[in-house]
């Protein structure tokens, strides 16, 4: 590792939560605007997290503390791996470990809300993980590598070759952002569903840590999205802005769905879209 990579990694670890929090603030403001309200200040997510950090630590058992920290470490590691331009599959596995630890922490508590939320979270993971793998395999077919530096070296935007797979990736983005219609385990913006689903039994500073880890996750998924137009900055910014705007609009116009609907719909649509995209790729190469 040379000096440039190390500085990249440090910069990413510091800037990612700031960007994630700011994004969450803008998101809340826009959502309020869509609903005809004024909305909280842009810095609201930071106020929330600082307030939570200053509250009394209250846990039900040790597992919660351990799991929360493992989730945070895994999320930071993912962002660091991305900044190091490591392997996409490696990042995927580390991300999964973090998500699993959050579920384990919720399952370690006898509260029925937290248990039910954890099981729903597992189903959500079951929904988006195969699709994420398919997206990575699609990227591999185009660029010939899972390494991010090789993907960045590819001379055309891969969005042009994989438009349908990008749509599939946005399903995973919606689930990771905890947005409607896929917010069945715990919803964004502190809406009430199953009390708070997986987050019910985490409180005070531990909830703050989960929130920070969530910001890292959002930044990571958006970074993966940005790989699809890595050739020019303007294209990248436009692609991300349009994607996020679409997410907010979908969040506001769709109701929450059941897990059965989510699983069948996302798998059916996602897998057929990826199939078409792959067929298109092969048709082009002949």
């Amino acid at each position, binding site marked *: 590792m040379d000096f440039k990579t190390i500085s990249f990694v440090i910069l990413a670890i510091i800037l990612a939560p700031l960007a994630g929090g700011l994004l969450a603030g803008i998101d809340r403001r826009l959502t309020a605007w869509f609903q005809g309200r004024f909305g909280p200040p842009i810095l609201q997510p930071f*106020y*929330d997290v600082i307030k939570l950090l200053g509250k009394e630590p209250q846990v039900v058992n040790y597992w919660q503390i351990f799991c929360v920290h493992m989730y945070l470490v895994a999320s930071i590691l993912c962002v660091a791996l991305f900044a190091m331009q490591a392997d996409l599959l490696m990042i995927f596995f580390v991300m999964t470990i973090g998500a699993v630890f959050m579920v384990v922490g919720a399952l370690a508590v006898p509260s029925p809300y937290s248990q039910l939320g954890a099981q729903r979270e597992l189903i959500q993971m079951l929904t988006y993980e195969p699709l994420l793998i398919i997206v990575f395999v699609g990227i591999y077919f185009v660029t010939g590598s899972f390494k991010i530096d090789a993907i960045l070296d590819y001379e055309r935007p891969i969005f042009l070759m994989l438009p349908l797979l990008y749509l599939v990736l946005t399903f995973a983005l919606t689930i990771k952002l905890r947005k409607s219609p896929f917010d069945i385990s715990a919803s964004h913006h502190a809406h009430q569903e199953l009390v*708070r689903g997986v987050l019910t039994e985490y409180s005070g500073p531990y909830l703050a840590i989960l929130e920070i880890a969530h910001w890292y996750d959002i930044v990571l998924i958006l970074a993966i999205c940005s790989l699809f137009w890595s050739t020019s900055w303007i294209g990248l910014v436009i692609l991300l802005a349009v994607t996020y705007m679409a997410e907010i609009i979908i969040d506001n116009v769709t109701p929450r769905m059941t897990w059965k609907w989510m699983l069948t719909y996302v798998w059916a649509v996602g897998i057929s879209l990826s199939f078409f995209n792959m067929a298109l790729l092969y048709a082009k190469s002949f």
Partner: protein
Amino acid sequence: MGFFQDLLHTSRVKSPWLIHFDCGSCNGCDIEVLACLTPVYDVERFGILNIGNPKHADILVVSGTVNPRNAKALKNIYDQMPDPKAVIAIGACGTSGGVFREAYNVLGGIDKVIPVDVYVPGCPSKPEAIIDGVVLALEKLKKRRPEKDTEPLVADLKKAREFYENREDRQVTR
């Protein structure tokens, strides 16, 4: 140190999360509390969220009178909230028992069971008065420190385990 303390105090004032508990109210006050969330009053612009979980909440908003049955539930919810926390009693019923104060099963206002920081009068209280009450409660909450915990965490967890094992004795309804 001063900088971080100030930051914490501003954050506390800017992000109060409420939990609303209906302690046997006639629903008049409940509807007024919910009215605060509509676009007309839009309390989210002050960072106020109505959150359904005592473990995440900072301010307990209670409407209605206390009777021997729901006193247990009220106390339980209050105990689940991590410090620092504040309590607001809403309506004539919440503050003193209101029109029901002489009923055979009514203990009186919320302060018969838990310490109350702010009393919001009215039957029902206006949404503006409720928002005012939250602002008053925030003034009190701002400088409050979590109580010094002398017990080690292990003892706490042991107590929690016992508490869970005796859960059947505490059930409000059987």
